[in-house]
């Protein structure tokens, strides 16, 4: 068709709205505004990341257990901490989400055709704004919140759930669990029933049908689920800001504050670049194992 000129405006658009903005982040990371208003090349942004004030490395409280203190630059500490929380949340989503996806898929296979009401029920909370879903946990977890009221009523000690690793992790698991379940579910429902029968036929009992056939076949779903949870968990600023009570720092809200409050755009942009490179690299690493799977497609 001789209609290719119709695509040209969009090409221009992507140059302005996709390429240029990313280049600008790099530009700001390597420049600083001088007192006279001009910009000059600088490496201060990156330098402050690797050579900032030293703080004891935070390993989710484990450093106290083992009595070890390692001094690392502030930003490195935040980065490591974000990575820990994101990985743990991803793991938790996987551990809780896989069985849920498996059970949903099994029900689906039995029922054949029609809508899967349970899956619909599963998706509905996702359609609520992430903000509201996170906000909802405040009522449950705050010091005099509902969970603590219930605990007190049954005679258990109250717990501190907000403003700490637990609260943040819970917020992440709650927000991102569907991102784990849906890709796994969509792969599991497509697993050919005859492959399960073939495995049984060759002598596999139920446990081994699962470990040798179903689980390996669902790995693409697991991979894309891990991706879809890890990335937002690593970069969120909403969850630490809402559930962290203003004191809890992850890389996402550190960057946000640098831009919006501290206005140190050089450091903020440098941090953004480091984060972006890290996230894209880890994603690339994961998708290597993902053979032609369109996991994200089921979200809507």
């Amino acid at each position, binding site marked *: *068709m*001789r*209609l*290719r*000129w*119709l*695509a*040209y*405006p*969009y090409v221009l*658009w*992507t140059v302005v*709205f*996709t*390429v*240029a*903005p*990313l280049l*600008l*982040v790099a530009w*700001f990371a390597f420049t600083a505004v001088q007192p006279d208003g001009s910009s000059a090349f600088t490496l201060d942004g990156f330098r402050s990341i690797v050579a900032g004030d030293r703080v004891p490395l935070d390993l989710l409280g484990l450093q106290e257990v083992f009595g070890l203190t390692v001094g690392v630059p502030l930003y490195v500490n935040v980065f490591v901490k974000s990575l820990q929380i994101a990985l743990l949340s991803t793991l938790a989503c996987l551990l*809780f989400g896989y069985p*849920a996806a498996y*059970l*949903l898929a099994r029900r689906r296979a039995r029922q054949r055709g029609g809508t899967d009401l*349970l899956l*619909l029920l*599963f998706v509905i*909370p996702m*359609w*609520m*704004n992430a*903000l*509201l*879903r996170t*906000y*909802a*946990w*405040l*009522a*449950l977890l705050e010091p*005099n*919140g509902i969970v603590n009221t219930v605990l007190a009523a049954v005679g258990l000690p109250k717990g501190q759930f907000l403003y700490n690793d637990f609260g943040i992790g819970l917020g992440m698991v*709650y927000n991102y669990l569907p991102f784990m379940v849906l890709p796994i579910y969509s792969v599991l429902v497509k697993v050919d029933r005859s492959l399960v029968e073939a495995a049984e036929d060759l002598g596999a009992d139920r446990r081994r049908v699962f470990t040798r056939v179903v689980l390996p076949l669902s790995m693409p779903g697991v991979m894309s689920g891990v991706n879809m949870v890890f*990335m*937002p968990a690593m*970069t*969120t600023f*909403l969850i630490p800001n*809402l559930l962290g009570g203003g004191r809890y720092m992850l890389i*996402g809200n550190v960057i*946000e504050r640098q*831009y*919006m409050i501290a206005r140190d755009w050089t450091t903020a*942009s440098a941090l*953004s670049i480091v*984060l972006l490179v890290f*996230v894209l690299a880890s*994603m690339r690493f994961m998708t290597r194992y993902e053979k032609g799977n369109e996991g994200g497609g089921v979200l*809507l």
Partner: protein
Amino acid sequence: MKLGRAVRGSYLSLVFVFLYAPVAVLIVFSFNAAKSRSVWGGFTLEWYRKLFSNAEILSSLRVTLIVALLSAAIATLVATVTCIGLDGLTKRRRAVVMNLTYVPIVNPDLVTGISLMLLFVFLQLPLGFVTLLLAHVAFNIPYAILSILPKMKQLDRHLYEAALDLGAKPSQAIARVILPEIMPGVVTAMILTFTLSIDDFVISYFTSGASVSNLAITIYSMARKSVNPQINALSALMFLTVLVLLLVVNFRSNRDLGKTKEGRTR
């Protein structure tokens, strides 16, 4: 066997409790007379009344809807035109364009929001309604393209030529032959981009500036300031809307499915 079934059933139930407990709490406490998120003080509808007279919320609701409608319409239009054109590009060039299209989808929202903010600052566009709209169009276009492109691929390339052969002008051929064929993809794109725009917080947060707020930003600042049960009331209404919409959509697609099934057996 029976034990296994009970365990499986209760596991799923627990997951659903986990998913719905916060939502239920939000909704219940939207009727709470006490100004608390978690201590019950009697039934009231006051928060709903306040919500509907809260100028800030109403104006940000308006902004949200206008931005969603406009950005969905613009993004879908651009994507439709682009998809028709993409077909004629060489393979190499198409691959380049598609890779660029994937960038905003793959990028974390945080980075997309920041980079767009930097763009607007660099272009000396004051942050406000226009930048908010541009940002939404920018993150919507890739999703619209990905919704329409599969339909375009299914399209028989000779249809367009056949139309020209029969005497249609290119514009007529597009309007009468290509558009009707890719219409389902266009509708999907419209719905998808509309919902994405309504749902977005992060990118809006960086690109709207101080003068304009959409609903998400208003809720965020309310939530950070103090306890405000109006948020609960708003959440309850939004949840209900989503629920009804989803059920309607689902019911309709089920009915269509039933129809095609019947048609086939006849």
